[in-house]
Structure formats: C-alpha cells, structure tokens
C-alpha cells in the first residue's frame, strides 16, 4: 500500500475512554429493507438464518462449501483426457523460430510433442495442435503484446506485425505431421534422430575395455527399428538368447527393409526459372542425391550390423558351442553324438552306396545294350521289308 500511516508520537498518551461509552443506537429493525440481490445478500441471509450472526460459523461453512466445490472441480478436471500430450515448456528458441526457415524446424517440439516424436498418434497431433493454436492465435496476442505507439495516429494499431510468426510455425508443423507422406519424409530426417545418429558406436569403441555390447547396440537397433517396413522388429535379445533367436535377429537386419527416404533434403527446384533444363537438372540431381543418401544409409545400417555381429559375445559363444560339439563328436563321447553314426557304420553305408551305384551302373549298361540290339533288329526288319516291296514292284 502506498499510504503509510505516520508513526505515533513518543509523547502520545493513551486516553482512557469512559467505560460507559457505547456506540450510538443503530437504526431499529425495519428501518431499512435489504434488496435481495447478490452473493453478499446470500451470505447475510446465511448469517442471520443459520449461524446466529456469528461470523466464525459462517466462515467455517463457506470454507467447507469452497472445499466441496473445489473437489467437484478437481473431479471435473481429471475427466478431460489430454491423450498424454501434457504441456511442454516453450523456450525462446522455439517461440522465435522464423517461419521462412520451416524446413529446419523440429515440428514435434513446436507442437510440444517431443516426448512422443515419431510415436505420436494422429489424435495426439490433432490435440496438441489445437492446444497450441488456442494459446498462440494472433487474435489473442494482438491485445496482450502489442507495443504501444506514442504517435496519436497509430494508437490502437497493432505495430507488431511479426507476432503471428510462431502461429505460422504451428500451422506448418501441423500440415506436415498430419499428412502421412510428408510426415514419413520428415521422420526420415528427424533432426532429433539425426543428432542421435551422430554418435553411433565405431569399431574402435567396441574394442575398448568397458564397452557394453548389449547396452550400446540395443539402443542402436531400437533407433533404427523405426524405419522398418516390417513390424515388429526382433530385439537384440540378451546374452542367453538361443542360436535361433540370434540368427533370426541378424537375418532380419541383413535383409533390413527400410522406408527411410531423403526427399526432405531435396534442393528446391527454382520455381522462378522457366528453364525446363534447369528444372530437370535439379530434379536429376535431387534424384541421384536421394539415391546416394539411401545407399549410404543402407551401407551404414549394414556396417552397424556387421560391427555388431563381429563383436557379439553370443556369436562367439555359439561358435564355441559348435566347435565343442564337433570335438565331442570326434572324441565319440557316447550320448553326446546322439544321432550321428560311428565311423564303421559310415563306411559300411558308403560301401553299400557304392555297391548300389555299381549295380545300377551295370543294370544301366545292360539296358543300353538291349536297346542297341533292338534298334539294329528293327533296322534290319525295315530293310527286309523294303527289299521285298521292290521285288514285288519289279515282277
């Protein structure tokens, strides 16, 4: 409060009022008639009808009432489902984005969905967009942030012509994310992903002592699994995964079928130029560039899989097991060789097979000989027949 009551003078002596002093008598009841309007009147009625004119009783009642209403409101609030969108903080770097640089924006961040990113559903995108629009619509901003002008001619005119910049960014973000094709293109080059992609494990890292294979590569493959056309993607698994699981995993990743594409990074075709050649040239370049990036991407994934395979402790384990199995077989440990046969049996089998083959050969030879004979006989018979026919003609 601006006004401060001046301090009491030191010389001031408290007067002692006469003990008989009373307020002057109030106007008697019925002197005035209240107008029955307004919340204050309701409180007055409560006071006189229910609380024996005691303010403390009324206060208690009102407090209880307020709590009841508050709990009602709280219940009402939880019923509104925001689909988990929540409210993300908007820092200055987001609010001051330049809508002209729209290709460089992080749309998930603009819509406050950076905790979902590519996992955000269309409903969540719609909800988040609506929420942002309500908050940042230029109509709302004009009144709150309009700079004031000292010029009398401009009073009431909104001078801040750029205050819809962020709104434009929101619109663009929604436009991209709500279109599946555009969203796919954007997700392919999602700036957040690109950042993460920067620090992929290298061969050198994997050699270091405190390198944790599963921790690192689970993360890596999880990141890339978003691009798979086939879902769900098999996980890297754990140290005790079976041979089939491990092989299935590497099989999948060697045949990885990705939808990732790089149209987003195309150079803009210069719209202004009429030259068809120019356009075609740019388009062609874009196309080769896309293909190049795609190829790079495939190579990168392949490289990662190779790397993983090369350092996968399970592969070593499996190889070891196979080797052990072979050695055990060689040593002929019974029971362990299971279905495999002894060397003797094998040789017998071989012999039997050879014999069978020989027999077969012999039979075939015989058959061939028979066929030759039959052919020759048939030819002789034909000759004979012709000769007889000629003789008959000649006679």
């Amino acid at each position, binding site marked *: 409060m601006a006004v401060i*009551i001046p301090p009491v003078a030191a010389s*001031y002596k408290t007067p002692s009022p006469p003990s008989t*002093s009373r307020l002057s008598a109030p106007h008697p009841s*019925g002197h005035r008639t*209240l107008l029955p309007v307004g919340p204050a009147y309701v409180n*007055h009625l409560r006071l006189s009808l229910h609380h024996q004119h005691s303010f403390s009783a009324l206060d208690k009642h009102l407090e209880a009432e307020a709590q009841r209403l508050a709990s009602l409101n709280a219940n009402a609030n939880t019923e509104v489902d925001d689909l988990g969108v929540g409210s993300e903080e908007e820092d200055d770097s987001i609010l001051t984005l330049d809508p002209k640089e729209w290709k460089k924006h992080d749309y998930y961040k603009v819509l406050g969905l950076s905790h979902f990113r590519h996992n955000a559903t269309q409903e969540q995108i719609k909800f988040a967009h609506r929420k942002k629009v309500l908050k940042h619509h230029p109509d709302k901003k004009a009144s709150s942030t309009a700079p004031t002008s000292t010029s009398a001619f401009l009073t009431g005119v909104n001078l801040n012509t750029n205050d819809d910049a962020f709104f434009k960014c929101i619109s663009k973000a929604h436009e991209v994310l709500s279109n599946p094709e555009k969203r796919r293109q954007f997700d392919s080059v999602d700036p957040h992903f690109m950042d993460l992609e920067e620090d992929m494990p290298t061969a050198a890292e994997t050699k270091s002592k405190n390198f944790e294979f599963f921790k690192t590569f689970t993360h890596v493959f999880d990141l890339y699994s978003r691009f798979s056309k086939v879902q769900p993607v098999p996980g890297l698994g754990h140290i005790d995964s079976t041979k089939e699981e491990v092989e299935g995993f590497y099989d999948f990743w060697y045949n990885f079928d990705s939808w990732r594409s790089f149209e987003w990074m195309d150079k803009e075709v210069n719209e202004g130029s009429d030259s068809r050649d120019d356009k075609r040239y740019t388009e062609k370049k874009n196309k080769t560039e896309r293909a190049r990036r795609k190829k790079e991407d495939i190579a990168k994934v392949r490289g990662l899989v190779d790397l993983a395979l090369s350092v996968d402790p399970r592969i070593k384990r499996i190889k070891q097991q196979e080797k052990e199995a072979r050695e055990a077989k060689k040593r002929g440990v019974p029971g362990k060789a299971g279905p495999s046969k002894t060397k003797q049996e094998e040789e017998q089998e071989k012999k039997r097979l050879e014999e069978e083959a020989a027999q077969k050969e012999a039979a075939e030879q015989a058959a061939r000989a028979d066929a030759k004979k039959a052919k020759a006989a048939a030819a002789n018979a034909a000759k004979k027949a012709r000769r007889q026919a000629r003789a008959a003609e000649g006679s």
Partner: protein
Amino acid sequence: MSQTPQTKGTSTPVEFNSFAPVVGINFGNSYASIAVHAKEGQAECIANEDGERQIACAISFSGEEMYIGNQAKAQLVKNAKNTIINFRDLLGKKFSEIPQPTTPAASAPVIQHPDLPDTAAYKVEILQPAPSPLPAPSNPTSKVGTPAMNTPRSEPVRTTRILTPSEVASIFLRSLLTSAEDFLGKKVEGAVITVPAWWSAEQRAALETAAKDAGIPVIQLLEEAAAAASTATSASWVGDDAASPLLPDRTQLIVDVGSTSTSLSLLSIREGLSYVLASSYHPDLGANQIDDKLIKHFATDFTKKTKVPLTVAPAPADSVQDQRAEARLRLAIEHTKRTISASPGAATCSVESLKDGFDYTGSINRMRFDMVASPVYVSIADHIVSLLSSAGVDSHEVDEIVYVGGTGSLPGLDEKVGSAGGFDEDRVQTPFARGTVVGGGVGDPTTILARGAAAQAALITALSSNSEEDKELKEAITHAEGDVNKVKATSRTLGLLFPNSTEEHAELGGVFVPVVQKETALPARRILQLEVGLTQDSKRVAFEVWEVKEGIRVEKVKVEAEPLSDGEDEEQEDEFEEVKHKIISKEILLGALEFEAKLGLQVKGKSELAGTWSTTVQVQFIVGIEGELDVEAKEIGGSAEEGVQPAVVRLHVPAPSA
C-alpha cells in the same frame, strides 16, 4: 490525504452452476430485454430473432399475421388501431382504475371487456383463417376416373378478437422466452422478471400469472432498483483490481428514465449489501416528452423546408395525415436518439414521404439536441435534488450515479444531472466517466436491468442443491416479503484514529480511517490492512476507536480568494462560490489500543522512504446485531522471522442499552 484501506469483505464469490439455463427478463412498459447467464459467469444481454436487444413491447395484428416487438411498432403508422402498446402497466388493474386518455390514442384503445365485469381489454380486427374444408371423400376418383378436385379453402373470415392485457402480456412474454431458448438451445429452467418498485401485490400477481401462461418458470419478481443493484455490485461492474474507483462502501443514485415514467432510487451499498435509502417515482416524466419535443423540432424543420404545414405532438384529431406523420417521426427518431448517444457528431432523421409525398431528412447535433431535451433533463435533475434533500443526503455524499434505460445513454442527461444536481464532479462516478456506456459495455443503461435479473436467476439457481440450508435460503430469497430483509443498520461511522500531532492532522488529532460506514446493515464485519509507520526507537503502535459524525461544511468563498489546498473549488462567474468540504467530527471515544510491534520492517533501497520502519496491521471490526462492537488488531507478516509471536490486541464494547 486519501486513505484507501484494503477491505476484505464477507462476500466470498458464490460459485454458479456453469451453464444454468436461466434468463433475466426486463419487462418494461415500452421496451423489454432478455439476458442470459453466459459462459464466463457473467450475464449477457441477447438479441431476439430480429437482432434487437431492445425489444419494443408491442403486438400488432394485421390480417392473418401477428407481429411482436419492433416490427409491431412499425405498424403504428398504418395499422394503429390493431396495434397494442403500453399494456404492461394495465396488468392487474381494474378497468375503472385506468385513467381514460384525454387525447385520442395512437394505438388500440383500451375498452371495457364485453363479457367480464370491470376488466380492461383491447379489441383488434383480425382475419381468421377459414376452417379447412372437409377432407376429400374416401373414394378419391370420380366416376369418369379423373381424381376429384379438393374443395379449395375459403377466404379468411374478418372477425374481431378481444384480448385482455394479461393475454397480451402472455403472448409477448412467450415470444421473449422463445428467443431466449433459441439462443440457449435449451429449455429455460428459471427466469427472474423485473417489476417496478411501486407495483401493488395485485399487479405482481397478474404478471406472474401472465408469465406462467406464457410457460416461463418464474423464480422471482425482482424490483427494478434491485436488478440495477445486482448489476452494479457485480465484479464485472466494479472491476477486479483494488485500484477501482468504486469503493465497496458507496452511496449510489439510480436514475431510471423510462419512456413513460422516471424512477429515482438512492441506495446504500455496503460491500455488496444494498438497501434503498430513498426513492421516488414520477409517472409523468419520461423519454416520451423528449420525443415530443424532438418531433416538434423536426416537424418545424420540415415545414420550413417544404412549406407543408405539419402539426404534431399532439397531431390534430381530424388530420389522419398528421397523425401518420407523427407516428413516422416517432419511429425515425429512435434511430436519431441512438446515434446521438453513440457518437459525438450530428445525427440524422430521415423519413420517406412524411407528408404530402415529401421526404424529410434533417440532422441535429448534440448541442441542439440537448437544448431541445433540456426541459426534461432539468426536471429530472430537480427531482434528484428534491429526493436527496428528502433523504437528508448531501449531493457530495453520493459516490456513484447509475443510469438505466435508453434515455440514460444520452450524454446530455449525464452532463445536466452532474451540474444541476450539484454533485462533486471530481469524485462522483458515472458510467460515462468510466467510458463503459457505448459499445455494450458493463455500464450500458439499456441492458443493466436484464443483466441484473439474469445474475439473480443464476444466483438463486446455484442454491438449489440438496442441502436443507440452501433450500431454506432459496425460499427466503424468492419470498422476501418477510422480515428477513428488515435489518438494523448503523447510524454513525466507526473508524480508527491514529494519533498524530503534525500540523496536517491538527483538526482531528490524527489520521482517521473509516472502517464501518454509517448505514451498514447489521451484523457487519470489516477487515482491513494498514501499513503503520514505526520509529527507530519505539515500536509502539497505538490507535483510538471513535464513532464520528460526518457532515458537509459549506463555505462561501470569494472567487478572488486564494484557492484552497484541496482544490475542490472551481472558478465560476459568481461573486461568491459555495465550496463544500466533507468534515468529520469526533463524537464518542469507544476505546484505545496499543501494542509493541514485533514484526517491523525497515524499508530498504533508495526511495525517499528508505530507512523508515513500518509494519502491517490487520484490524477486524465486528458490529453485532445489537450494536455491540468487537475490535481485534493483529500484526501480520511484516518480517518472516520464525518464532516471534505477533502482537494481538482486542477491544469489546457492549451493546447500547436501548
């Protein structure tokens, strides 16, 4: 030195049901308006299907058609005898009680009901649609095989219809209800309708019956002054911040200028609780008189421009042309008046084919308009002065003027009332001064009553929860004829005097802070916080509780004299000028309290107050129902030191033995 103590009232805002489909209806004699309780917890005046927020109380029958509202008013020109206006004031009145008009009526005349004894009625000519012909015979083809032709509907029958004022009101109210339900998209669950304060119980009952017939679930019939107070005490009116010029305790003058009558009410508003200190009703004074003067002005102008003689207000009984011209002018000047109210420039009045085929277009600027209307303004101001003097309230004690009704939007009226009423121009608050009149602001005089009624409807509906207490409260509010509203009120102002011996405060011996104003309904509680200065050495806080008498000291000062320090005087051409001062004289010392401040704070920084000590003291006054007084002064959080018990002192003054 002005004190603005931050008072915390007993009025915790009551939560409303967010979307209660309730309406407030201002049912005037000439115009009606509807308000609904809108989303933001505020009442809002709505427009009917024709886009009119001010709906003329008129019904017109023309052939088979029935017109209601402003369309019906247009029928006054050519179909006056079938157009019913001014029916509200006939509700609940016997025919013999209605004064017979001296001049021929410009609308359907009031007649004695042909069947019912001593009942007023209107007789209108209508075309009744002929009964639909008998349905075609069951065998729809004739013998030849061609389909039989349906019998054509016969011509509508010319007939007369007798309508009682109650029936007319019922038809009109139903149209209002339909408009409201169209707007809300829901069925209206409750309505509060305004009535004039001077209405008798019969008139109220008649209105309630008419409303019931119209299907309106009436919650309460609310006095117009109360409806105005309901709006004028709402948060949207006062404003949220503490800097609002409207104090929670104020004396308010309501100036309600209707078409046919004017009523004035002087209210005492004490933290939302309001009651009437004095009121007066002037049935002969209203906007119709301004209209008469205005159309005379335009008629003279018309004659001057076209050389066609035109006599209006009143038009000669034998000249239908003049009567029609008058009706046309009356319709046209509605627009003129609205333009004058809304913009500072000149307003036009144009009527096509006013008389003898001559069109009329004239304009009037605000100054000329005020000159024309000045006699009416002056008589309103005179009535205000006499009301104030009868109530024993000085014009300088009025803190706020509220205008109600379309005429209240005229800036000239405000100027005239302000100057002729002798109000303290620096202090008195009007909607014009705050700029809330135009553009449908909170101070818009045309919608105040309807909005107040809607807020009241919402307030009562919010009570209808299941608790017993609320039911009883609702009963008490809606049938408030009982004794609950008869209250005791303080007769003198109570306050705190902080002793100080400086020159500035020599008159009273200290700084006086009023706490409980006079005319405050009992029981009353006031809580205020004050910054009290301390000295370096002593942390003593001391004050006295006084009952004081307020008065106005009138000084006659010569113009040549030096202007007084408080600057309340203005230079005028009179040789002597009356300067009014508010004065306070100490009457009864009720007690004195002092304590040592424990939570004092030293002001830091570089302001001129730096180095001084102060503390925050919260003082609570409770004046009980019998007039006993309890004062509690408590030191509150100056510094955040833990473990320091703040000083609390109490004072009890027993009730006067009356």
